[in-house]
């Protein structure tokens, strides 16, 4: 661009400084490609349509040559001064433009770097959004999402150790108190357990059969006081649990209701048309609840009494043809010549003190019958045990007599009691007959 084409109204500024061929100190090579020159020319001269060869020739001829030193300087002084100022202005302008260009390039670089920085930051959170604005150079050299950021508190937190120590001390104290209480409780529990097991040991040493119990409401030690191992087939197996109460004392708890009835045998003789009790004897069972061993023995004795009356009542139905009856479900009446035997169960508390004072002959008979009944039940147990252990017959073998159809207790007793009076009456009859016959013969 030549200085002569400049006018006050049209000022065309190019950010690209003009090439400085005269000054070799300028090491900057000005690359002015066609895409930069053509728009500049278009701005200065208008469209290329108005450019012809003649106008260009004239322009060139009108340009003063820099090698023409003899050309008279026909410029007036005022114009010379304004040209000098213009040159300085131009130099300043070019310098300013170069600075401006440099600053803008720097700003562009900084902006690009900032954009890359922010994109890299964003890519750690939203990789898709970050990578779209990252430059290819950054993408190829730095992995996506490798730069992160976080907020920094304004002031660092300083822990108060005294609070921490206070809490710790309180927790340790509470734990130690709990441990101490637990130890006391355990020691007390161990003492109660020891007491319980000492009592269990005493029972085991005394010969009772102990076993582990697994019941719906209890799991622990139990004692078998029944007669199942002796051959009894009674429905009650005689099992009691050995429980521990809160005081550590051993408590014997039998299954079902507590038994209190014992067998009583009474002798009744006719007096004035009615049968009157003339002698009675009841089994003696000491009612004891303080000593566990005695309590177990008492339970065993009462179970035996219960089973005995059950067997007697069952056999009453078999011996009904001999006149033996079961009155009101709890009294067996055995009619014999000249007397009646009444067998029933009475409560331990109902034992009449007069029974103790009765020493008549019928009391002795009642006692003997009572003892015989007990012995016969033991014999039945022994028989059952022997049958259980004997070599069984093949399954399906026909047996003549069933177990439920034989009287093992009442029949021997009744037979032995009835034999003597019958024998006496038969003897008397025969004696009478023989004496009568002898008299007739004589």
């Amino acid at each position, binding site marked *: 661009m030549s200085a002569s084409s400049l006018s006050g109204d049209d000022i065309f500024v190019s950010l690209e400084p003009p090439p400085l061929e005269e000054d070799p100190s300028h090491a900057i090579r000005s690359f002015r490609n066609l895409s930069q020159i053509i728009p500049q020319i278009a701005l200065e001269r208008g469209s290329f349509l108005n450019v012809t060869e003649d106008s260009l020739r004239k322009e060139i001829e009108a340009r003063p040559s820099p090698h023409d030193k003899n050309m008279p300087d026909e410029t007036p002084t005022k114009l010379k001064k304004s040209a000098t100022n213009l040159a300085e202005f131009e130099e300043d302008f070019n310098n300013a433009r170069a600075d401006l260009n440099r600053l803008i390039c720097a700003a562009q670089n900084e902006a690009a770097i900032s954009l890359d920085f922010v994109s890299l930051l964003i890519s750690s959170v939203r990789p898709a959004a970050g990578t779209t604005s990252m430059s290819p150079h950054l993408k190829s050299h730095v992995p996506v999402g490798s730069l992160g950021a976080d907020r920094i508190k304004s002031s660092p937190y300083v822990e108060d150790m005294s609070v921490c120590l206070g809490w710790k001390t309180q927790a340790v104290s509470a734990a130690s108190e709990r441990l101490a209480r637990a130890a006391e409780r355990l020691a007390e529990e161990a003492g109660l357990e020891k007491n319980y097991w000492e009592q269990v040991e005493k029972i085991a040493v005394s010969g009772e059969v102990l076993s582990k119990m697994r019941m719906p409401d209890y799991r622990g030690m139990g004692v078998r006081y029944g007669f199942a191992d002796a051959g009894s087939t009674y429905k009650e197996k005689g099992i009691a649990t050995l429980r521990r109460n809160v005081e550590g004392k051993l408590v014997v708890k039998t299954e079902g209701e507590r038994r209190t009835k014992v067998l009583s045998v009474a002798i009744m003789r006719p007096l004035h048309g009615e049968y009157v009790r003339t002698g009675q004897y009841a089994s003696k069972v000491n009612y004891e609840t303080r000593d566990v061993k005695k309590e177990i023995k008492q339970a065993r004795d009462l179970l035996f009494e219960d089973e005995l009356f059950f067997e007697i009542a069952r056999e009453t139905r078999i011996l009904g043809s001999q006149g033996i009856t079961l009155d009101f479900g709890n009294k067996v009446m055995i009619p014999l010549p000249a007397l009646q035997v009444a067998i029933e169960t009475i409560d331990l508390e109902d034992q009449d003190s007069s029974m103790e004072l009765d020493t008549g002959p019928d009391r002795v008979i009642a006692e003997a019958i009572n003892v015989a009944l007990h012995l016969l039940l033991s014999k039945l147990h022994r028989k059952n045990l022997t049958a*259980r252990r004997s070599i*069984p017959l093949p*399954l*399906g073998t026909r047996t003549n007599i069933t177990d439920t159809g034989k009287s093992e207790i009442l029949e021997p007793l009744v037979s032995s009691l009835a034999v003597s009076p019958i024998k006496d009456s038969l003897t008397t009859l025969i004696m009478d007959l023989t004496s009568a016959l002898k008299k007739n013969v004589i």
Partner: protein
Amino acid sequence: MSLQELSLYAALPPSRVATFLSTLSAVTGMRAVPVLQHHLVFSPTPASASGALHPAIGPAATQLEASRIDVHRDLAPANGAKSSWTLTIPTIPESGKRNVQVQYINRTTFRPDEQCVTDDTGILFRFLRALDYVYAYDYLERGHLFVYSGMVIIKVTQLSPQSPPQLHEIPVGDEDEHVADTVAQHRDPETAKFLGVWVVHAYVDILTGSESVGDDLEKVRIATERLEALKAEIAGVVELGIPDRGILDPRVQIRK
């Protein structure tokens, strides 16, 4: 008497017998009852051969066994009579997958007052000779007997190499240490190799035929249940099981 025997077997080394007897005492609720069973085995002669064990082997027939069991006085009959000789005709156990072994047996008991085996002229020998059977060998089985649940008979026995002088004498005490010494002295080498081993035989006899009462299937079911209950109760101490049915095959090849 036609019987169906349901049984289970097991084998025990002598070192475990004491523990097993204690266990059975607890399970059955009774002490071990010493028993001594004398077996006489009769083999068929060629004249009695019927059928064939296998066409390639030749004719065969069933061996018969007569036995008498002597038990301790606790189990002996109350009248003090000695036990009788019983002739047993077994069959091979039933095949098929079962929980217990099933074997059909015929037993005939001689009258106790009969002189069966005093000598070769005893009724037992004469009877079997008439059937063309001759005496082959005899052996003793001694041990202990239990009864479980009133139905299952459990015999824990071993073969004894010696014949006692009197059949009603039951040896007392543990004579296992003598067994090894007398193995070579046993008459039958086939039986001798089993000396020292204790055999556990748990069985239930079911009467079959017109003499029996009750439903046969129900009796078999009850017997099987009791045997399985016993097996479960002593599992861990000894494992009752079913042996190979060929071991109990009573048929032998006839040697001409």
